[in-house]
């Protein structure tokens, strides 16, 4: 696909995965270039979140391999996997903040767990990261006292606290107003430029994500439908990509979750 081996941060080969009988991935190859922002686009329910969890080693593929920094994620012992994860951040779709800790303590959590930094240093780092997401003033609040969009920003501050080399964002822009969205987009780009962070962004906000990403994959139905630079994706003549970019309900990407009967039969079927 792109560039030589060492430039590939995450390499996915022949990935197959299913939940029971429901096939989520059916032979997928992906290369996530190092130090770049890669977008993963795809309709709701395709398995984007699942892909991030597979890369993070939370779930195990049925077959195929996922390598991060040349290391097969699913062939590691638990402690090796944890070492790998210290260099990986995953921003959950839900934020996944610890509800018994304040905003400040949530961001401090990975620092306290993994470093022996003095309290004053932790405080500075936490405040810097909270400032970056515009929530320094909310540090005393608890997760139940902040909105969904704010939670996700706190989660972002927490995810970058340990300065990971790879960060995966699951729908970071959902629930953000245009101003915070702009700030977050700039933040992601700054992190990427300043620290050479590899970013994977899963999102529905196609326009915004394509505007900051260096490369993009369009996935649907367990396959990679299209990939390339944002320009290439925008210009792509592939029906799939076009349908997705322009949000049309009809086309090769089905809007409907697969049903066993057609709609008319389902409605006409008499109730026993």
């Amino acid at each position, binding site marked *: 696909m792109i560039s030589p081996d060492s430039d590939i941060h995450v390499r996915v080969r022949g990935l197959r995965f299913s939940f029971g009988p429901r096939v989520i991935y059916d032979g997928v190859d992906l290369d996530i270039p190092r130090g770049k922002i890669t977008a993963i686009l795809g309709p709701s329910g395709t398995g984007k979140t699942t892909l991030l969890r597979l890369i993070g080693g*939370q779930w195990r593929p049925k077959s195929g391999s996922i390598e991060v920094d040349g290391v097969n994620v699913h062939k590691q012992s*638990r402690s090796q996997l944890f070492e790998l994860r210290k260099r990986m951040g995953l921003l959950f779709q839900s934020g996944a903040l*610890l509800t018994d800790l304040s905003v400040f303590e949530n961001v401090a*959590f990975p620092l306290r767990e*993994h470093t022996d930094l003095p309290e004053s240093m932790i405080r500075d780092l936490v405040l810097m990261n909270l400032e970056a997401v515009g929530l320094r003033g909310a540090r005393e609040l608890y997760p139940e006292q902040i909105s969904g969009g704010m939670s996700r920003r706190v989660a972002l501050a927490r995810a970058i606290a340990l300065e990971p080399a790879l960060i995966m964002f699951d729908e970071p822009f959902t629930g953000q107003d245009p101003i915070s969205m702009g700030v977050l987009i700039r933040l992601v780009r700054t992190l990427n430029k300043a620290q050479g962070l590899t970013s994977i962004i899963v999102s529905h906000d196609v326009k915004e994500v394509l505007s900051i990403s260096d490369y993009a994959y369009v996935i649907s139905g367990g396959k990679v439908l299209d990939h390339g630079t944002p320009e290439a994706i925008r210009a792509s003549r592939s029906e799939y990509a076009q349908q997705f970019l322009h949000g049309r309900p009809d086309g090769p990407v089905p809007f409907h979750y697969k049903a066993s009967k057609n709609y008319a039969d389902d409605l006409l079927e008499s109730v026993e």
Partner: protein
Amino acid sequence: MSRGSNILAEFLRGLGQATFFLLTIVRALPGALLRPRLIVQQLYHVGVLSLIIIVISGSFVGMILALQGYRTLSHFGATSTLGVFVSFVVVRELAPVVTALLFAGRAGSALAAEIGLMKATDQLSGMEMMAVDPVKRVIAPRFLAALIAMPLLTSIFAVMAIGVAGGHLIGVDLLGVDQGTYWGQIHAELRPHDVVESLIKSLFFGIVIAWISVYQGYFAAPTSEGVSRATTSTVVVSSLIVVGLDFVLTAFMFR
């Protein structure tokens, strides 16, 4: 037949999973001991917050025993042995068992619900992704705190039931048993190993309740229904095992 064997298979699978989980927890305990702050925090949640219910129940159980005991003992003109009667029943049986049942209802259910909700809201997988092992960070301190809390709460229950408010209040202050006799008889008859056996029982019950509640929470289905089922199962299963185990332990101790 096949339904029966299904239930059996399900039960054995659960038992295997729970046993394996217990081993994982035990392996995480030394690490947890190095972070006493987390344990103290949990001791507050499972221990201190259970105090009120333990103190009140202990007092009432002692008062009831004194009333009942006094009536029966007075038939034999043996009311001076009231202290022995109350303290034997309390120390050997009621303190560990009633404390365990109350503890399962108050602290065990809370633990299961808390852990189940953390799971349902991705907090546990969030930790995993931050390379923090939830068994070490969340489960082990709670497990240890429950273990430590049980014998302490049992002792408090016993003290309330025999001395402070329970048997002493009714027997000595109300029914007029001589205070010196009340305590003297207890001192003469209650042997140290009665107390030790009582604490051993409570420790066993603590292990059972701690194990069941963290297991139920950790393996709860990540839904509201799953969490509610985990909470209920914790109380039901712990209570049944506590009474069954009490019989076994008692049989061993009074051979």
